[in-house]
């Protein structure tokens, strides 16, 4: 221990106070808690003007002193002069969008009192406030007033906690004022102007008191009003509560108080779960609860009771007499509420039209022969956690009057997400905003309002422009797409693009010595055309004993992205790269993704290699993991590789190696299929872009070559090998991926449909049985039918997820789709964060380096997994939405007649999938036949009988092949381009 660095111990005396508060425990007892609070004098004001505080600051563990934040020359307005701003908690919570706005709010002092209150009230906003503080440009400073002796405020007897906090904030203002005055008067620059401290609060009482104490206090509206470009900013001020008080004619049922909800959930009279709105019918939602195998049904706006899709809600069961079956109708909100006026409320929550639909459903429930379809029905009685975020939408044109005055008006915003209601915002710019994609935030949904209240955040651009739509879909799927910040970019190697593998491998770097030099191996990579971020490369070599050495080499991202750096944090928060049709949103900065990490041909790169010894029969004899240095000989596209393998005139070693790989991969694949791996199809389409105008040209279904499966097989093998290894080394925290077996209930409907229509079934006993039974679902007359069933089966499956090995027992690790006992993601560290974690764990497992604490703690790993699961899902949705948008654009130019398949039948419409474009479209009964009332829906056989406009009778059932005319059409009221199909006979 003699070599240890002695750390200096703080001996300066501190004064002590105590924090006393009362906490209620789970059992309902109140406990008084007393905590120490040390008051000190070394908390800086962090103003660059100050000459006193810099003498007094303390360094952190690494001896780094935080630079001062608040600028010497802060924001300035005509009325106030230059000033620093102090905000209170309500401002932070209600107007966080404004605080984040680039145009205003610089040099903000956030008292600790405010920060603590924000954290207690809303964690997401706390997180956003924290990231604002990190943002160097915005110059936010958290002033720990509770720990500074001069600014600490003791709660007075009979003083409410809010009053005490307000007093603490006022004390901060007063202290800053006198402190800066003092420090400037001490300075040798006496001409320095004295700054004002401005308190922004919407609390009238607080403002009056502040003014009495000589503090400049303004409301948010007053402050924004004093800024030069206040017009747009004023719209962003959240709606204030007083506005709603006049409308009292109707109301949603009040939510239960939190204590009752908690009690109810605990003693199992109420149930908690996430609300899931039906995409075809916004009046219907389901809540999955652990208590019931099937989700609970919630019907009607009143029962959904202001909950949003995705909210965590508490529900109460309705009496059995009110149980219904899921509706068989399609209900679009936009159709129903087209004529609502944003300023005048309609007198009842449920409109007449909605009542009609509900009535129809009640009738169905009574008359339906199929008893089993009646589901327990419930109503929402409370919302535990809102899923509110930013939403993208556009102003409903007919909800605003056409006059061009800039007075404040209420308008409706129709969101892009169909499952959500429209939002009422108040804006002065309605005239200019019509026809644009805009971002809105939701403030509240009072019980007496039919629509949630929100405010305008910003405009993205004209509807249907590529930029606006792309940004909209990124925002809508919560994808971080802003450029990387400076702190993140600072973590990159200084050499930039000139970074090279060191020539001298014996330069004293211990880590480098542990790398294996594999530059002599004939490595190549096979990827899609134009791939820049090459994650993986392969090689095969004959060994003297007749076996093959096969190696998978993965980009060594872990070398550049060290744990607990800002770069790592950014990667962890993005979770995955997002691939759109014309754009890629990287998880890691370009320099790494497309250059330093990318296993480009002809250059030396660091890699993480998995080396197997495989017998010619495909049996694995030995597995090795090592960090390595490789030099890829060639980067092939799938087609090029295929051509080269098929070309018998090519007899060089590289090609021979690839043939060996192909041969082995076929054996591996066969083994996997024998074990019960599923082949689930989903129509993947590719949009061809015109290279010059980058306008979408043509749509094509992706083709699969042998080489695709070559690469896939070896990646699967590498992932499985790595999963085993890291699980062995880190049984509690290994980063793994599982895919649960689908519950039988998911397949009930599909099985019933297959049985009734085609006399087929799918078996669910095991993945093998499912794979076999899917193979049997063949219609001789219709080759596509099998793929169709697979597509529909895929939709019944659960999603695969990342998890940390401590969260599940070993049997539950199983990857159902791949029929593997254990699985992880290791092979794409450039575009997935899970792989980076797996890399680090593997590096630690082979003794290359020690593992960061955050990958060794169960709860931290669970948090990482939760986030990347969410990001992964969002990325998939964003990718699909992008394809959908472009397919729409392609169809705009070319209308055509296509083959389609009926995949859903409702009593008032059908859904058709067109495989050629991979799009689905809805046809309403009104468009099918002249007289909707003449149609008959037979639920037991999934048939719809109707009379066509021409007068001929027609029957349409699920799985039917139909001819449709496909075109894309812009719906004027919603601004959304939709694929519109019409049935041809």
């Amino acid at each position, binding site marked *: 221990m003699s070599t240890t660095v002695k*750390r200096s111990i703080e001996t300066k005396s501190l004064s002590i106070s105590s924090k006393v508060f009362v906490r209620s425990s789970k059992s309902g007892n109140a406990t008084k808690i007393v905590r120490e609070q040390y008051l000190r004098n070394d908390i800086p004001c962090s103003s660059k003007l100050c000459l006193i505080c810099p003498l007094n600051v303390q360094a*952190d563990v690494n001896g780094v002193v935080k630079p001062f934040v608040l600028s010497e020359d802060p924001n300035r307005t005509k009325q106030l002069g230059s000033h620093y701003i102090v905000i209170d908690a309500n401002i932070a919570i209600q107007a966080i969008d404004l605080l984040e706005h680039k145009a205003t709010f610089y040099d903000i002092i956030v008292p600790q009192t405010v920060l603590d209150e924000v954290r207690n009230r809303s964690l997401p906003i706390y997180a956003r406030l924290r990231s604002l503080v990190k943002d160097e440009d915005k110059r936010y400073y958290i002033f720990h007033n509770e720990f500074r002796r001069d600014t600490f405020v003791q709660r007075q007897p009979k003083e409410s906690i809010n009053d005490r906090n307000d007093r603490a904030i006022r004390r901060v203002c007063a202290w800053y004022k006198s402190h800066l005055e003092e420090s400037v008067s001490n300075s040798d620059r006496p001409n320095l102007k004295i700054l004002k401290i401005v308190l922004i609060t919407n609390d009238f009482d607080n403002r009056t008191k502040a003014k009495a104490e000589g503090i400049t206090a303004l409301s948010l509206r007053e402050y924004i009003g004093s800024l030069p470009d206040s017009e747009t900013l004023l719209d962003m001020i959240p709606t204030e509560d007083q506005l709603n008080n006049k409308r009292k004619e109707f109301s949603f049922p009040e939510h239960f108080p939190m204590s009752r909800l908690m009690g109810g959930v605990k003693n199992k009279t109420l149930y908690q779960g996430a609300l899931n709105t039906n995409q075809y019918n916004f009046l219907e939602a389901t809540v999955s609860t652990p208590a019931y195998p099937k989700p609970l049904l919630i019907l009607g706006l009143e029962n959904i009771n202001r909950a949003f899709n995705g909210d965590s809600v508490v529900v109460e069961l309705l009496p059995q007499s009110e149980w219904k079956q899921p509706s068989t109708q399609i209900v679009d909100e936009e159709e129903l509420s087209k004529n609502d006026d944003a300023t005048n409320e309609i007198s009842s929550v449920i409109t007449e039209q909605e009542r009609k639909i509900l009535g129809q459903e009640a009738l169905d429930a009574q008359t339906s022969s199929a008893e089993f379809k009646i589901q327990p029905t419930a109503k929402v009685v409370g919302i535990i956690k809102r899923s509110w975020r930013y939403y993208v939408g556009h102003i409903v044109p007919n909800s605003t009057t056409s006059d061009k005055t800039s007075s404040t008006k209420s308008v409706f915003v129709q969101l892009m997400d169909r499952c959500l209601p429209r939002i009422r915002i108040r804006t002065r710019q309605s005239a200019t905003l019509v026809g644009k994609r805009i971002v809105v935030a939701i403030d509240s949904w009072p019980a007496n309002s039919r629509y949630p209240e929100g405010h305008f955040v910003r405009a993205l651009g004209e509807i249907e422009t590529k930029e606006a739509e792309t940004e909209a879909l990124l925002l809508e799927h919560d994808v971080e797409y802003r450029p990387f910040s400076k702190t993140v970019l600072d973590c990159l190697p200084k050499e930039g693009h000139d970074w090279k593998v060191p020539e001298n491998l014996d330069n004293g770097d211990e880590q480098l010595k542990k790398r294996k030099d594999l530059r002599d191996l004939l490595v190549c990579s096979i990827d899609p055309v134009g791939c820049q971020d090459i994650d993986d490369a392969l090689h095969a070599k004959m060994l003297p004993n007749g076996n093959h050495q096969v190696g998978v080499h993965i980009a060594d991202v872990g070398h550049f992205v060290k744990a607990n750096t800002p770069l790592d944090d950014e990667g962890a*928060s993005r979770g995955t790269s997002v691939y759109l049709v014309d754009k890629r949103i990287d998880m890691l900065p370009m320099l790494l993704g497309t250059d330093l990490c990318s296993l480009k041909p002809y250059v030396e790169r660091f890699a993480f290699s998995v080396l197997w010894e495989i017998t010619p029969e495909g049996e694995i004899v030995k597995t090795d993991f090592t960090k390595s240095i490789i030099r890829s000989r060639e980067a092939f596209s799938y087609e090029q590789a295929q051509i080269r393998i098929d070309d018998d005139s090519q007899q060089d070693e590289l090609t021979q190696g690839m043939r060996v790989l192909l041969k082995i991969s076929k054996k591996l694949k066969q083994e996997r299929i024998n074990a019960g791996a599923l082949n689930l199809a989903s129509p993947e389409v590719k949009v061809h872009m015109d290279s010059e105008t980058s306008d979408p040209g043509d749509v094509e279904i992706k083709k699969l070559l042998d080489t695709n499966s070559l690469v896939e097989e070896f990646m699967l093998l590498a992932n499985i090998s790595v999963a085993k290894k890291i699980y062995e080394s880190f049984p509690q925290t290994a980063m793994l991926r599982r895919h649960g077996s689908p519950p039988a209930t998911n397949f009930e409907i599909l099985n019933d449909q297959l049985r009734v229509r085609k006399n087929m079934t799918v078996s669910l006993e095991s993945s093998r049985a499912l794979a076999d039974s899917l193979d049997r679902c063949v219609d001789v007359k219709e080759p596509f039918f099998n793929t169709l069933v697979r597509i529909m089966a895929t939709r019944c499956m659960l999603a695969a997820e990342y998890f940390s090995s401590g969260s599940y027992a070993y049997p539950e690790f199983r990857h159902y789709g791949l029929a593997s006992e254990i699985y992880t993601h290791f092979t794409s560290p450039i575009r997935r964060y899970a792989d980076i974690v797996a890399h680090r764990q593997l590096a630690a497992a082979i003794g290359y380096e020690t593992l960061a*604490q955050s990958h060794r703690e169960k709860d931290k790993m669970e948090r990482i997994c939760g986030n990347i699961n969410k990001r992964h899902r969002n990325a998939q949705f964003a990718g699909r939405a992008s394809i959908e948008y472009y397919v729409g654009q392609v169809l705009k130019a070319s209308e055509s007649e296509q083959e389609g398949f009926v995949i859903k039948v409702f009593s008032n419409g059908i859904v058709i999938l067109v495989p050629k474009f991979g799009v689905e479209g809805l046809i309403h009964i009104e468009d099918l036949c002249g007289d909707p009332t003449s149609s008959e829906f037979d639920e037991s056989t999934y048939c719809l009988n109707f009379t066509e406009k021409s007068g001929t009778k027609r029957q349409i059932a699920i799985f039917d092949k139909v001819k449709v005319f496909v075109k894309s059409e812009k719906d004027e009221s919603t601004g959304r381009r939709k694929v519109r199909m019409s049935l041809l006979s």
Partner: protein
Amino acid sequence: MILDADSFLEKCIYSPEGLRADGRRWNELRQFKCQINTHANSSDGSSYVEQGYSKVVCIVNGPKEPDGRSHTFLDKACISVEVNIASFSTVDRKKVVRNNKRVQELNTTIQRTLEEAVLSHLYPRTQIDISIQVLQQDGGLLPTCVNAATLALIDAGIPMVDYVSACSAGIYDTTPLLDLNTMEENDLAFLTVGVIGKSDSLALLMMETRMSMDNLEPVMAIAIAGSHSIRDIMDREVRRHGKQRLAKKGNM
């Protein structure tokens, strides 16, 4: 863009500004208060120690006739430690069974620690009773008990190599934190060291959580440094008390 809220769920143990939940910096001890000779009439040596809101009283009796055969060693004194935890010492009142495993382990740990410093070979066939009463707990129970026992032994006039001073330290991400309170102990990996005098030799090293090897050294370094400053405070108290005694004697 909404950040993932869950990643911020953790309590603010150590803020980005470098302050802990109670306003201390990473390398600061809680307020350490001590007193010796508090129970002069009922014991041979006594002390009272406060580390923040952890408060204990310690009483030493002996060296004295051993309680029985099992407490008799031919070559050295038998040190027996008994920790008594008051049921009102925690936030949620709970009865601590006198001989539960946890308390027994605490007894043994303190006993072994003190054996390193007490010159017990000077008192063969005797027993030294150390009884510790825990009045309030707020993290760092073991170090507080060790510190109190050291002071009481000194008060009882039992020869020791040097002070044994103990202190805990934990790790938050990569920052070592000194002298943890309950809230921090619940969330962090931490260890307790007992240091002999101003040296680097340890009489006690206790760690019940998992900590990575890279973090161990800085955490131990700061815990040892913390123990050294506790020794200084205790030394000051012993000298103050000694002077007071001498002054009284002079008066007589």
